[in-house]
């Protein structure tokens, strides 16, 4: 296949971040130069103009998730939103309820915020296991939630494996015991339909840069009826109804709003294309290679995330081979820890398989030609690496790898 119509490197890491849509950038630009006012300035038109931009964006973000604009609090991103939701709610209600229920496959910032509350502030935190397909077991959840539970926090879409959690069912279980339900929707907003009313969600974290908006801005949806209250993390001028002080970054927020609007209007069209590309990638690889395993539920997932284990080929060596394609590895050998992904381990994926995992992320700007090039390149390198893999050789000889006494090092 010719490389004529593709530009290298190819970006297939849409879960890490997305490029800002040019239409979003366009919308943002005037707010850097001419409409630069402080949106909290009440005494002149510069301030009013900026405030108008912010409030319009608030409506656009609210519309994406079926919320009222008064329920949207702007933050610096999903990490801050998750921290504000978890610590804010836990601290506000701690006299009556001091328990939190979350899941082992949550994003690090959720787990770390919970761990802080557990270790430094005396909260009891339950970390629920997931099933082999990455989905929460609702019966286990029901058993974990008590009348002391202040908050249940379960992510909407997992960043590593792309599985979608049953939000509406989880919300119902939380509410049976009077707990609030928070969801980290950083990977979900703009990709799956979300409706806080229909799904009975009390708090929801969103990030702009995961949905073709700018980096450095996000939102926390905080339900007003029935009212969810929380302690602020950042104190100051009392902006965002006192929940998040600090001057709002108008250009970023305006961009976030535009990104939300585009996502709302084009979600169906985007998803159809991404699903087609995802199938093309998955089938293309599987037609040429055996022993490729898809991690996470086959059906309950967003199509833009394919987390694949290429048995007997170590993930980082594959990434090095296909280095004109930007992907991410579940082997985590790239990080300092050398531990394979905790999310894959939570699914019961064996360590040796976790070391062979690659996350391929497809998005709005991925082309068919890029997918075809990726299939060809991945297949070529997996074959080459299997030829040099002692494990592949042993398995082809009929040796059970588990029968070998491996050394530790």
């Amino acid at each position, binding site marked *: 296949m010719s490389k004529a119509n593709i530009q290298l490197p190819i970006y297939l890491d849409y879960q890490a971040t997305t490029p800002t849509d040019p239409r979003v950038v366009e919308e943002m630009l005037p707010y850097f130069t001419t409409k630069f006012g402080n949106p909290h300035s009440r005494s002149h038109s510069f301030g009013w103009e900026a405030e108008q931009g912010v409030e319009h964006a608030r409506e656009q973000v609210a519309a994406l998730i079926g919320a009222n604009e008064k329920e949207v609090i702007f933050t610096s991103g999903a990490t801050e939103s998750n921290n504000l939701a978890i610590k804010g709610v836990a601290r506000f209600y701690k006299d009556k309820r001091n328990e939190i229920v979350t899941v082992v496959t949550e994003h690090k910032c959720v787990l770390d915020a919970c761990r802080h509350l557990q270790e430094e502030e005396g909260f009891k935190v339950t970390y629920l296991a997931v099933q082999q397909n990455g989905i929460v077991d609702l019966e286990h959840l029901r058993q974990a939630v008590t009348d002391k539970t202040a908050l249940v926090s379960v992510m909407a879409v997992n960043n590593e494996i792309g599985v979608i959690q049953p939000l509406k069912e989880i919300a119902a279980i939380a509410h049976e015991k009077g707990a609030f339900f928070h969801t980290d929707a950083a990977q979900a907003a703009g990709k799956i339909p979300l409706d806080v009313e229909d799904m009975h969600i009390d708090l929801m974290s969103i990030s702009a840069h995961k949905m073709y908006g700018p980096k450095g801005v996000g939102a926390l949806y905080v339900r007003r009826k029935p009212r969810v209250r929380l302690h602020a993390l950042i104190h100051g001028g009392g902006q965002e109804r006192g929940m998040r002080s600090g001057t709002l970054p108008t250009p970023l927020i305006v961009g976030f709003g535009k990104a939300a609007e585009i996502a709302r209007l084009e979600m169906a069209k985007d998803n159809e294309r991404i699903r087609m590309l995802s199938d093309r990638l998955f089938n293309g690889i599987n037609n040429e290679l055996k022993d490729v395993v898809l991690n996470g539920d086959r059906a309950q997932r967003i199509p833009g995330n394919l987390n694949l284990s290429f048995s007997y080929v*170590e993930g980082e*060596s594959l990434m090095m081979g296909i280095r004109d394609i930007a992907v991410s590895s579940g082997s985590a050998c790239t990080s300092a820890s050398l531990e394979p992904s905790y999310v894959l381990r939570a699914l019961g994926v064996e360590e*040796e398989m976790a070391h062979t995992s690659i996350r391929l992320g497809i998005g709005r700007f991925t082309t068919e030609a890029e997918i075809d090039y990726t299939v060809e390149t991945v297949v070529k390198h997996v074959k080459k690496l299997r030829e*040099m893999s002692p494990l592949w050789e042993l398995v082809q000889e009929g040796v059970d790898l588990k029968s070998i006494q491996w050394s530790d090092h």
Partner: protein
Amino acid sequence: MAYGEKLIDHYENPRNIGSMDKNAQDVGTGLVGAPACGDVMKLQIKVSPEGIIEDAKFKTFGCGSAIASSSLVTEWVKGKTVDQAETIKNTEIAQYLALPPVKIHCSVLAEDAIKAAIADYRKKAGKVAHAAADEPAKVAAE
């Protein structure tokens, strides 16, 4: 992370990939590491009657640094005596390939692989020598 040129060269054009007959008397095989740790190296040496390593082959499951480390040592051991090959240190491998600190364990594994291959060869050679001397094969060769 950015990789050094020599490392990339050994990863992209690995030397001496392959396998030799592990049952041959003049072949020593070392299989080190573990799949669960993300690296496994198989290194084989073929030794002449004079004790010179005539050929070396490897197969590695592991990151680019692990592949490069094992490729490099197959080059280094060829033409050396078994005793000389045994003195190769992981620090030399790491230095030559400019391995980052987090990848030093790959060079350690490569050193282990040579040592294991040599030990396997000696064990076989010892058995041959003992058999020739009409001694029982179960006597430890080392």
